[in-house]
């Protein structure tokens, strides 16, 4: 991998990788570290992977997911999933309430998304925020297309049900 390829194909998706890491770890600092480690790894191992990797984005997403899960497991970081919909008060924890200008309802929907079971949360994230195809989601999460669809449907249904009770 040359610097040009790295610059054109890997660097631009760093924000995407960061959001993904943030979704999994729930920690701004952890997510930043994950992205840094992933970028370094991609750069260093690129020569041996250059022929096998066809889709650098999917490859990076997989690395990000694995690294984020490692961090979450090893340090047993609790992701911000408050039961009452109010974000935990921690300077480091990712809190949807960080965007102060958005309405309370929007913040609560973000909290609902963060409360979803892991698989549903990641599928919904990759589809509705990163706008990946079902194929790409299946590859990034290493699950079947059927699993992608089922989890996405469940995630959206849960969000809808909670929104209905929120409004009423």
């Amino acid at each position, binding site marked *: 991998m040359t610097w040009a390829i790295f610059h054109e194909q890997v660097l631009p998706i760093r924000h995407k990788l*960061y959001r993904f890491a943030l979704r999994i770890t729930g920690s701004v600092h952890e997510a930043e570290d994950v*992205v840094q480690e992933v970028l370094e790894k991609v750069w260093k191992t690129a020569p041996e992977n250059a022929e096998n990797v066809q889709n650098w984005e999917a490859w990076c997403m997989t690395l990000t997911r694995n690294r984020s899960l490692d961090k979450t497991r090893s340090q047993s970081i609790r992701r911000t999933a408050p039961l009452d919909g109010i974000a935990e008060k921690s300077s480091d924890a990712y809190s949807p309430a960080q965007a102060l200008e958005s309405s309370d309802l929007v913040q609560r929907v973000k909290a609902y998304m963060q409360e979803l079971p892991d698989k549903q949360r990641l599928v919904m994230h990759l589809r509705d925020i990163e*706008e990946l195809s079902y194929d790409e989601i299946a590859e990034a999460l290493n699950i079947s297309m059927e699993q992608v669809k089922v989890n996405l449907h469940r995630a959206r249904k849960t969000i809808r049900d909670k929104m209905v009770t929120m409004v009423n």
Partner: protein
Amino acid sequence: MKYEEIQALLERYWEGETSLEEERALKAYFNAGAIDDRLRAEAPLFQALKEEQLIELKTKARSVGLRPQIYQWAAAASVALLLAAGWWMLGKEKNSMPLANQPQPQIPSAMPDPETQHHEVAAVVEPQAPIINKKPAKRRVQPLLSSNQPKIDPETAIAMAEIKAALALVSAKLDKGKKQAVQKASYLDVVEKLPRKKEG
């Protein structure tokens, strides 16, 4: 878009049957402002999705990306060093002939003063610089225009700092080289003077 169209898209969205394009249309509709009152209850989700899409990594990882660039600067710097050294050696050889005949050793001409030396380095490094800088520069300009975020500035600052560090390195090496060169040249001076004293 009309209420009926959005309503139909929404139903399919909840069932997980919408395409990416249709989902983008929903996000666009609910973030554009003019939302039909009957659809207000659904708006927060699509507004939340939009907000989440705007989350970006701060400059930290950028410096990781720049690290390989440092290597290129280091390479440019070593080329500059080699050229400077070669140039000096050549100058020394050329001057050694007239030096033998002239009573006054020509140290100033053999030894470049710091000013010209720095110019020489700048001239050597410069052809490299556009190649390295072209792409990052293009990339930085685009987001600056599209999203009026001043976020680019810290990134540019990092890039500038790294370039400065690289140039400082070159400069330091050159200073060291210059000192050694001056030292060697003073030996030459002594050697040139010794036989003449004997003759005289």
